């Protein structure tokens, strides 16, 4: 579904990704783990079009999207829930969700998806008219995910959905990620919490300073000594 071939990505003169390649198959949950500053968010931003690779290819369902503007990539079916949620704090929950469907014209479908989002996140339904800046961190995460789902994506990019949330809420968010996946949406999940990410993922990639250093089945990686030492707290 998504194929990344040997991309290099820069911020000005600073190289953030070096020769990264990756494959994501339809229906999978793939997780990307790595330390702070490894380049995880950079990779997601490159897929969603906020950054452009200097070299290399990004193919989505066979179509090259490496040079495309972010707004056309959304249209093709990739939604990105950015790190730090980035909800429109000056707008209500409802307005945020409407913006998620910005490019869609099928009113009936939008309404249907809105109901789906409210079923997935009942907390949002209780707060439709609330300014989203006044939501709690967990509610903002739900809103950011709901907003991305309103575009009816086939590939959903999630950047650290558990950041700053209480363990119970993290669990809940991860259950919802699995549920979204069961509904047919392919997922690329970036996480610091490697344990949890590996527990729901089919496959995983490990990034270090801009390069992929390991990849494989999630189960394999969970068992690997190297990963245990570096990312799973050595248990």
């Amino acid at each position, binding site marked *: 579904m998504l194929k990344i071939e040997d991309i290099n990505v820069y911020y000005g003169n600073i190289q953030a990704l070096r020769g990264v390649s990756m494959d994501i198959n339809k229906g999978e949950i793939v997780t990307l783990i790595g330390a702070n500053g490894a380049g995880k968010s950079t990779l997601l931003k490159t897929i969603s079009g*906020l950054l452009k690779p200097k070299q290399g290819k990004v193919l989505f369902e066979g179509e090259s999207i490496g040079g495309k503007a972010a707004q056309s990539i959304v249209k093709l079916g990739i939604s990105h829930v950015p790190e730090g949620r980035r909800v429109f704090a000056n707008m209500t929950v409802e307005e945020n969700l409407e913006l998620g469907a910005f*490019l869609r014209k099928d009113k009936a479908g939008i309404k249907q998806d809105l109901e789906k989002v409210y079923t997935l996140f009942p907390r949002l339904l209780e707060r439709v008219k609330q300014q989203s800046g006044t939501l709690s*961190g967990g509610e903002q995460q739900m809103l950011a995910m709901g907003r991305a789902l309103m575009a009816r994506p086939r590939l959903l990019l999630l950047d650290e959905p558990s950041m700053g949330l209480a363990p119970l809420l993290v669990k809940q968010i991860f259950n919802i990620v699995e549920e979204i996946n069961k509904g047919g949406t392919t997922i690329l999940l970036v996480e610091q919490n490697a344990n949890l990410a590996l527990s729901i993922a089919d496959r995983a990639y490990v990034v270090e300073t801009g390069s992929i250093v390991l990849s494989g089945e999630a189960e394999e990686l969970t068992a690997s000594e190297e990963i245990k030492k570096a990312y799973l707290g050595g248990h």
Partner: protein
Amino acid sequence: MELIQQLVNGLSLGSIYALIALGYTMVYGIVKLINFAHGDVFMVGAFVGFYSITILELPFLPALLISMIVCAIFGVLIERIAYKPLRNATRIAALITAIGVSLLIEYGMIYIRGAQPEAYPNDVMPTSKIDILGVSISSQSLLIFFVAIVLMIILQFVVHKTKIGKAMRAVSFDADAARLMGINVNNTISATFAIGSALAGAAGVIFGIYYIKIEPLMGIIPGLKAFVAAVLGGIGIIPGAMVGGLLLGVIEALVSAAGFSLWRDGVAFVVLILILIFRPQGLFGKNKREKV
């Protein structure tokens, strides 16, 4: 009674400031640029209105519309040619460019048609006096006030209820997040310049009808005062610009009424200094508080 008349004058003048201030504030909100050429768009609007009325012999409303459309296109051209290439440049570079664009429009206008002033014909609008509770108010000030209020209501509707308005609010809050929604940021910025410039064009026509005399440098002082009005209300905040403009007009009128008419032009800048010292975020501004 004199006081009430002055208040009405203040509101008419203030509605002109408010219309210009809206463009400042919308553009600032979306690209964080003080568009110093905005007062000159107002001047161009006044001239387009003037020529529509005198040469094309159009009545008020069509002249107003033509001026708004021409200014909208002009505003978009300014943005595309002068500001867009500098979008990732330092703020000071953009600011200096804005001052350059302003001078270019002012002296370009003088080059094209000369520096001599023009006088709006005085029969564009009925000039009768209306008696309300013993106060005689010129129908013109009321009409001007009314037109400005209608435009502001339309603007509120556009910003809150239409797709382009929602896109504008999203981009001004977080451009990258807006891109991820599928919003075309460049088009949204252009639309913002178009709407802000159209309002300045309308203000130009209204100004001409009210004050009669127009000339190529007429945009400088109202432009600066509208900027003060935008800061007074809270730069980037649309209702702030409306209230700031009206308030500034009323303050100026009251200063004149109190016998300090020589201070009229100075008072705006006193307001600017006071607001920057005591409430730099403006009347409607909030101290930014963000959740992590």
